[in-house]
């Protein structure tokens, strides 16, 4: 438990003798180790969250990128935690990470649980896709361009191809066939580049007890690029709570796209939809293949990583072939 480190850090930040209690590690979130804790000094008390790099991860990402993206979204009024402190070197937290405020009363739903958003699912969906549209309406500024990598469709595809090649344990005929089709059919951008969340999906946002949207989390894959990437990932059937015809377990695709278009001021690019759907599947395969590599190399025993190596991998392997057959027809 990182209690001593958090005590020293928060005492320095607050300029007081801070007491830390209530430390609890969150289950899941295989990309980072995430803890909640309470900092108290004098009359001040605040629940905070610390995220730091684990020994092995689903994805190799930068804490500066995540911290910057949360700060940018927070400043723009999007529902996100308030960033508190970045420790890019790991000197304060033991490994690179950061501290942010906790969203009180928030809960992340299991994206594989049908009906998780209950009677307010459609309302939650519209709020979710409106928030995504608001993110995509932000014009990248100088700080964004200095901190966030720019990755268009071709760049993003090359990124995941490298991950698959680095981590494959055995032949991957479905992923390789998907890559061949994708690289031969790279679409034109759907519009000017925007901030892209990079992992926008059910399970990465918090809702309250009535399932109303509270906060969007997990910004570690943020970059500048094409907003169609976020739209394809969040509407991938894998994250659909096993409810065909309902995106992210919330609302219909039509309602989602309408909310996104209204908030972003952009038009959904129907011509590139198929490409981005297959890209999403390929991205998923890259993440799950990386996970399997980490597990097989015994760098981690986290059951979330083992799960990722099995269920989502096999679902996306099948989906890649199904989409290829559709796209090649």
């Amino acid at each position, binding site marked *: 438990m990182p209690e001593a480190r958090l005590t020293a850090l928060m005492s320095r930040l607050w300029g007081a003798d801070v007491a830390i209690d209530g430390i609890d590690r969150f289950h899941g979130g295989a990309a980072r180790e995430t803890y909640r804790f309470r900092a108290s000094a004098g009359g001040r008390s605040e629940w905070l969250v610390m995220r730091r790099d684990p020994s092995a991860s689903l994805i190799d990402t930068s804490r500066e990128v995540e911290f910057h993206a949360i700060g940018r979204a927070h400043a723009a009024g999007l529902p996100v935690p308030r960033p508190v402190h970045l420790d890019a070197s790991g000197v304060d937290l033991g490994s690179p990470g950061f501290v942010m405020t906790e969203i009180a009363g928030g809960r992340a739903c299991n994206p594989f649980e049908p009906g998780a958003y209950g009677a307010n699912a459609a309302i939650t969906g519209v709020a979710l896709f409106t928030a995504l549209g608001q993110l995509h309406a932000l014009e990248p500024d100088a700080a964004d361009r200095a901190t966030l990598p720019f990755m268009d469709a071709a760049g993003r595809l090359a990124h995941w191809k490298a991950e698959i090649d680095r981590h494959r344990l055995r032949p991957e005929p*479905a992923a390789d*066939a998907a890559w061949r089709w994708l690289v031969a059919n790279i679409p034109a951008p759907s519009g000017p580049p925007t901030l892209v969340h990079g992992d926008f999906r059910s399970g990465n946002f918090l809702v309250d007890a009535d399932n109303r949207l509270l906060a969007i989390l997990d910004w570690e894959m943020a970059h500048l690029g094409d907003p169609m990437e976020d739209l394809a990932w969040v509407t991938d059937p894998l994250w659909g709570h096993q409810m065909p015809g309902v995106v992210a377990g919330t609302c219909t695709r039509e309602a989602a796209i309408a909310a996104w278009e209204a908030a972003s001021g952009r038009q959904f690019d129907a011509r590139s939809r198929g490409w981005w759907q297959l890209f999403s599947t390929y991205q998923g395969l890259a993440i799950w293949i990386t996970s399997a590599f980490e597990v097989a190399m015994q760098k981690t025993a986290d*059951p979330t990583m083992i*799960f990722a190596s099995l269920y989502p991998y096999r679902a996306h*392997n*099948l989906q890649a*072939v199904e989409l290829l057959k559709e796209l090649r027809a």
Partner: protein
Amino acid sequence: MSLSNSEALGCFAMAQGVMVLPALGDSYAGKSAATLAGLMLMLADGEDIRQTRRIALRAELEGLLGQTAAADEGWQAGTDRLMAALGAELARAEAADPACAAQLLDWLLRWTGNERLTIPAPPPADTDAAAA
């Protein structure tokens, strides 16, 4: 044989649920133990029929590719070698022989479909507790 592999996995999951989870509760370790129990159930569910289909599908692939796994090869090593050959043949056929590519893709669809797992349904609610 007293228990098949998939029956044993199901029993391990039940033992985890009955003997380990109550001791760990709603902690990080407890939730991890629950995930492990779920993983065991997921792998056990339908594994016997998946393996029967794997054997038939692999024999079909051997026919499509005109090559067979070696007699002294383990199952996984033989399958890996055939999958590598499938990947190479599919890449060639996409450019030179669309009918062959379609046939290989059809086979791959059935193979990946057979490997698809199902998340186990949560245990039924405790109706006595709910009534109370």
